[in-house]
C-alpha cells in the first residue's frame, strides 16, 4: 500500500515537472521575450543567435522527461525524431545539441554567469535572480 502511494506520488510529481517549464535567461540578458519558432531554431542549432543578433548559448538538463516535453511542445518532435535529427546534424557537421547539465542548480549557475545563455527548467526551481522569458505548458 505504501509502495503504491509512493509510486503514484512519484508519477504525479514527474508529470507535474514535465507539464510546466520556464524558459530562462540571465537577469542581465537583453532578451525579455521569445517566440516559439525562435526558441526551436536555437535549441535545434538552426541558428547561433537571438533575433536581436546576440549570440545564443543553449543548454539543457540531462533529464529526459524535461527534454521530451520541451521538444514535443516547442519543435513538434518526439524522442525518436529528435535522435535521428541530431544524428544527421552531428555527422554532417551542421550543428551540435545543447550542452547537458546533470542538475538544475548547475544550469542556474551557468545562466546567472552567462548573459548569452538560455535554458528551460521546471517552474518550481525558479528564483529571483534569473529571468523567465517564456512559459511552456
Amino acid at each position, binding site marked *: 500500500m505504501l509502495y503504491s502511494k509512493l509510486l503514484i506520488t512519484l508519477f504525479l510529481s514527474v508529470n507535474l515537472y514535465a507539464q510546466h517549464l520556464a524558459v530562462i535567461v540571465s537577469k542581465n540578458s537583453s532578451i525579455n521575450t521569445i517566440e516559439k519558432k525562435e526558441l526551436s*531554431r536555437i535549441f535545434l542549432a*538552426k541558428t547561433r543567435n537571438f533575433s536581436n*543578433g546576440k*549570440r545564443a548559448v543553449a543548454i539543457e538538463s540531462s533529464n529526459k522527461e524535461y527534454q521530451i516535453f520541451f521538444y514535443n511542445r516547442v519543435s513538434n518532435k518526439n524522442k*525518436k525524431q529528435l*535522435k535521428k535529427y541530431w544524428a*544527421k546534424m*552531428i*555527422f554532417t*557537421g551542421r550543428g551540435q545539441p545543447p550542452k547537458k547539465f546533470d542538475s538544475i542548480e548547475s544550469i542556474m549557475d551557468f545562466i546567472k554567469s552567462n548573459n548569452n545563455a538560455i535554458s528551460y527548467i521546471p517552474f518550481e526551481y525558479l528564483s529571483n535572480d534569473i529571468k523567465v522569458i517564456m512559459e511552456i505548458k
Partner: protein
Amino acid sequence: MLNKFFKLNIFLLFSTVSLYAEQFTESFRLDGYANVNMKEEKQERKDSLKVSGGFQGRYEVSDNMAITGQVHFREGHKSNGMPSNSLEDYDTELKWLYLDYYFKDDITLRLGAFQFPIFKSSETGDIGYTYTWTETPLRFYGVFGCDDYEGIELLKNFSYGDYNFLAQFSYGQSTNELSDGRGTSRNGEASDLIGLTFKTSHDDFLLSVGYIQAKSTLDIPDILINIVDDTVNFNMMALESEFYLGDYTLKSGFIKTNLDNVFPEDIKYYTSLEYSYKDITPYILYSKEILKFKDASRFNKPLPVKLVDEQYSEKYSLGVRYDFNENMAFKFSYTYENDVKKYGNIFNNSTDKSSNLMGTINVIF
C-alpha cells in the same frame, strides 16, 4: 599547392588544440557509429556480411571556432583484390576533417576535407542509423565524379517566417580515386570544383537542390587514349525532397551526372513512402539508375557504332525499420531488381532479374 595549404592548416589546428589541452574534455565531443549488413542474393546463392563503423570528434577551440574529424572503418581487400572481412585488411579512411569559423549572422566558413553537400544520404551514407532504408538508393554521384573533396565552404543559415534556409557555396579539388558509383573507380582528380547548394525546410517538408561542376582528369588505359578524352568537364545537378504527412513521409530524389566525353550520362532517381508507427517504420522504395550512351561521332572519336543505347536498373524494395532503443535500429528488406540493356536495332534487349534479402543493425553512440 592547395593540398599543402590544407595540411598546414590542419597541423596548425592540432597544434592549437594541444595548447588548450587543459580545457579539452569540456570542449571535446566524441560520437561514434557502427553498421552490420547481412545480404543474401537469391539467384546467385551468395551471402555477405559487412561490418563498418567510425568515430567523429569535435573540439571547440573557442566560442566561434571548432575543428571536426571523422574516421571511417570498413571491410578491405586481400592482396588478390578480393573483399576481406579480416581485421588486418580493414580500410581506414579520413572522411571529414575541417575547421569551422563562425561569423555573425549565422555565416560559417569551413576549411578542410568534406563529403559532398548535396544529398543527405551522401553525407551520412556511412551512418545507417540516420536513414530508414537498409541501404541508400542515391548515394554516389556516378560517371567518375568525386564523392569527397578538399576545399572551402561558405554556409549561411537564415529563416523567413516558418521556413528555414541553408545556402552553401563550395570550392575545392579532389585527388582521391574517382568513382562511377557502381563499384568501379579510376585514378584521377577533379579540380576547379564549384558547388552551390540550397536547402529549405518547414514543419511539413524539406527541399534540397544543388549543382556542382569540376574539371575531371582520368587515368585512361593506352588502348583507349584515342577514344576517350581524359580531361573533361564534369557536372552534376541534384534535387531531393521530403514531405511529412502525419505519420507518413514521402521522400524523392533525382540526380544527373555527366562527363563531356563518350562516357554515358548517368541519371538516378528514387521515391519512397514510409509509415511511422511507434518504433516500427515500414517502407516501400522504388529506384532507377539509367546509363544513357552517347553517339561517339559527336566527339570525333573512331568508334564505328554505338553498341548499347541505354542501360538501366530498377529496384523495388519492401522493408521495415525497428528502433530498438535510442541508439540502435534493426532493419530488414526484400529487394527485387531488374537490369535491362537496350541494344537499339542491332540485338534484342537483354534482361537480368535478381532479388536479395538484407538485414542491418545500425548503432550510434
